[in-house]
Every structure is written in structure tokens, then in C-alpha cells.
């Protein structure tokens, strides 16, 4: 059995008195599309923050490709190939669309290179532009190339954030409510694109979503969080009929 790309073991996070995550344990296989669902405040985003290093857990370990990354700072985890988007869009609003993408490419030449316009500087800048443009084209954002991020319509900004995450050439992509605020049609086309990308970039995706049609239609496996605990794990069908999940959502009409 190949080593799972991500292993989360007994993660507990506490903010003052409030227990945000309690003994959360699960693992993700390479290439999987895992969905995380649960009512508001169940700890979904806190889980993402813990995986990406923004929040340090009180207890528990996190393994990425077999390596223990629990105490790594966020930027090192990103370099290892963990990329994410945010629930409420954290773009670099006064930078151009292209620059937003380039940000994920680190610093490919020595800091002083631009001062003396060394050849390595020109070569790498050209390369960065090319790969950025390629990515923008796949996300149909190329026309907005020189506009500043805050000038884009909402849908386009959502796609830009995902494109920026992909510019990190990640192995694991954490999407925090990617279809939130999108029309049904836009959500479906986004999920189709993500399916293509998963194959193209041999990508593992973890998705936090409230849009049940998206979750049910596209995720291979689902985990349900409630009050910081995993209450159910399984294929979309199993989850749909799981009493604990229904009870957690209380009164929501049947899932499928």
C-alpha cells in the first residue's frame, strides 16, 4: 500500500476555552478528491489552517509524503507542495493578475540580480512570465493579465486564487469553498476544470464545500466534521444515508 500523501493523527486545537478540533485523524491517498463537509463552525477552516501551519495544534501530528511537518512554518509547507485558497479570498488586490500568479514562484534568482540586470535575471523573468501566462490561459484569465486583482469580477477572482495556488506546482491542493458565491453553472464548469487539472497536474485535492451537488457529484470520499470531531467518513452514498450526518445537519432535507 503506497504511503498516503497526507496523514493527520489525533489533531487537537484549542482557542482559549473553545475546543476547535478534537482528536481529528484521517489520511488522504495520492490523486484523491476528498470532500470535507459539516455545519458552520464545525472546524473545517481550522483544519485547513492546521494543515497549512497557520495554526499550531495543541496535540497530534501531521505527515506529508511521510515527513512530519507539524512544526514546519507555513512557507516551508507551501514549498513542499501544499497550496490553498481562502474562504474569503485573500488576493494581492493592488498587484496585477500576472504578478499575483508570479508570487507563487518564489525567487528563482539571487536578490541582487536585477540590480546588475544579470543574464539569469532576464532569463528567469521571461520564464516566469511564460508559465504564468500559460496558467492564466488554462483558467481563461489571460485577458485580465494587466488589470489589478481587485478590479476583477467575483467569479474571475475566485478562479485567480485557484490559479495562483496551482502556480506553486503543488502536490496537495486545499480548496476552501471554491464554489461559494458562484452560480450553479459556474460551479459545475469549475469542477470540470478541476477534474482535468487533477489528471494534468497529478494533483490531490481536499475540498471544503456546502454545495451538496458539487460534493456528491465530484468527490471520491467524504469526511463530516461536527463540533471539531469526525462523525462520519465514506463514499458520498454512505454519507448521504448516515444517521449521524443527518442529525448533525438537523432538518436538512435528505441529502441526495
Amino acid at each position, binding site marked *: 500500500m503506497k504511503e498516503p500523501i497526507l496523514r493527520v493523527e489525533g489533531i487537537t486545537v484549542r482557542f482559549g476555552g473553545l475546543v476547535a478540533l478534537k482528536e481529528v485523524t484521517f489520511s488522504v491517498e495520492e490523486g484523491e478528491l476528498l470532500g470535507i463537509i459539516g455545519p458552520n463552525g464545525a472546524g473545517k477552516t481550522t483544519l485547513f489552517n492546521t494543515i497549512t501551519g497557520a495554526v499550531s495544534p495543541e496535540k497530534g501530528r501531521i505527515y506529508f509524503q511521510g515527513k512530519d511537518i507539524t512544526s514546519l512554518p507555513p*512557507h516551508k509547507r507551501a514549498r513542499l507542495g501544499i497550496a490553498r485558497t481562502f474562504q474569503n479570498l485573500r488576493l494581492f488586490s493592488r498587484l496585477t493578475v500576472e504578478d499575483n500568479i508570479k*508570487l507563487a514562484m518564489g525567487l528563482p534568482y539571487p536578490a541582487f540580480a536585477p540590480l546588475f540586470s544579470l543574464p539569469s535575471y*532576464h532569463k528567469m*523573468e521571461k520564464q516566469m512570465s511564460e508559465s504564468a501566462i500559460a496558467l492564466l490561459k488554462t483558467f481563461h484569465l489571460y485577458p485580465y493579465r494587466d488589470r489589478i486583482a481587485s478590479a476583477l469580477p467575483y467569479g474571475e477572482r475566485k478562479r485567480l486564487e485557484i490559479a495562483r495556488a496551482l502556480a506553486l506546482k503543488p502536490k496537495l491542493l486545499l480548496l476552501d469553498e471554491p464554489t461559494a458565491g458562484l452560480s450553479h453553472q459556474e460551479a459545475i464548469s469549475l469542477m470540470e476544470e478541476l477534474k482535468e487539472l487533477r489528471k494534468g497536474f497529478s494533483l490531490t485535492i481536499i475540498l471544503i464545500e456546502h454545495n451538496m451537488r458539487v460534493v456528491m457529484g465530484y468527490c471520491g470520499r467524504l469526511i463530516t466534521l461536527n463540533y471539531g470531531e469526525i462523525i462520519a467518513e465514506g463514499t458520498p452514498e454512505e454519507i448521504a444515508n448516515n444517521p449521524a450526518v443527518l442529525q448533525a445537519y438537523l432538518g436538512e432535507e435528505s441529502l441526495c
Partner: protein
Amino acid sequence: MRAKNIILVIGIPFSLWLINHFISNPSIFSPYILQIIVLMGINAILAVSWDFISGVTGQFSIGQAGFMAIGAYSSAFLTLKYKVPFLPAILFALILSAIAGFIVGIPTLRLRGDYLAIATLGFGEIVRVAILNMPSLGGATGLKGIPIYSSFFSVYLALAITLWFCLALLKSQPGRILLSIREDEIASQMMGIDVVKYKVFAFTFSAALAGLAGALYAHWTSLVHPDSFSFMKSIEIILMGVLGGMGTIYGPAVGGMLITLLPEGLRLLLEQNPLLYQNKDFVRMLFFAILLLFFIILRPQGIFGKREAKG
């Protein structure tokens, strides 16, 4: 691309050297105007140094006067007491203020927004009061009789180099990274950028530039005393940056020049009106305050900044 650079790298110093002969000769050109022009250059460097850390990297600093003081005093101490020539003294001032920037940068950069601003203000005052209590640095009455090594040429060459360094960085990936830290530190971290390392670099680089300006200032006025590096000086530097247009580097450079030009222009203007002339210094600061308020509320991006489109 290459030819253009060579022309610039040789052309600018040569033309500055040429102008220097014409402008520094008291019989041809009035030293009073020269004095203003040199101070314009020094203030431009200071405004750019502030813009690099506050406008570009978004770490609001009210302590530039502290680094300027370190640069001024360290270089003056060497040239005055040990007869060290000008260039090594300037390099020493640069390095010392860079080290100071590094030492101050690491602890304070964990702070956010106005806490950071107040910490840098505290740092600036600590430097001023420390110098005040160092008898070897002339204490409260300052260092006098510093050899006048600065000239139009050295100041504007330093300004040219400062602008070249900062603009080259700004237009390339290091600049983008610093700008991303200004825009959203957490997102920048998530994109794999070691935010602390870059903030400390920005702080150190900005401190070095302020130190350079301090060294040039000391060797032009030939007298430095702690009061000319009070936090009011830091506020004046902020004013230049904000009016010029934060985050553009060339904006604050022009802002620095205009702000220096203002009091002299005001002095000539006010000479006719005795009452205003009587307390012209307050009129100058009053005018600054109103100008600052006008810009912040009506045109926050300053003269050269780009309007932020409302998404």
C-alpha cells in the same frame, strides 16, 4: 537593453560631475540656493528609504530619524576624531545603520500595524536620548566642525544609486514579494514566502539608506545635534513619502524634494507679509499639516500613486 544601461551607468555620474563644477562655485551660483538643492537630494533619499519599508513592504515606520542619526553620528565621529576619509566613513555609516536596522527589525517585525509604528517611534527616541547621554558624541550640544565633504555631486550620485537599486528591486520578483507582504502577509506566507526574512531585509536595506542620508547630511551642515533627529523629523519624512505617493519609490523622491523646497519658497513668499514672516516656521508646519490631511482624505495615493480600483 544592455546599451541603455551602460549609457545610464556612465552618463549620469559624468553629467552630475559636470553640473557640480558649475553649481558648487560660489561666484557663479548662489550657495544659498545650492544649500536648498543639496538638502532636497538628502531628503529625497530619506523619503525613498521610508517608502521602501512603509510604502512597498507595508511596515509603517516612524523611526527613520533614528537610523539617520546613527548614520550621521557614526560617519561624523570617524571623520572628525580619526580623520577617516569620506567614502569609508559613509560605508561605515551605511553598514552600522544596516546592522541597527537588522537588530531592531527582528523583534519588532512580529508586531502589526500601529504597534509596529509605535515600537519604531520608541526606537527613534531611544537612539536620540542615547546619543544625548554619550559625552564622546558631544552630548546635547552635538558634534561641531564636521568636515564638509558632501557636495551636489556626492548627494545626487547617492540619490541616483538609491533610485536605481530600489526601482530595479521594485520592478522585479523581490519587489513583488515585498508588495505581496504589504497586501496580505498571511496569503504571502501561504504562497511559500518567508515573510520574516523579507521584512528584515526590507528593514535593514531601508535603515542603510537612511544612514547614508544621515552621513551626507552631517558632512554638509558640519553640525549635528540630537534634536535634529527627533521623531518630528521622522514625521516630516513620512509626509514626503505620503505626498509623493507611497509604494512608487520615485513618488516619495519627488515628494522629498518638494517638501524641502516648500519652506524656502514660503520664506520668499512670506517676506513681503511681515506678520506671517514673523512666525513663518509655524505657517510652514501648519501648511504641511493641512496638505497631509488634504491628501490622505482626498487623494490617498499621493501625487504619483495609482488609484486603487474598488473591486
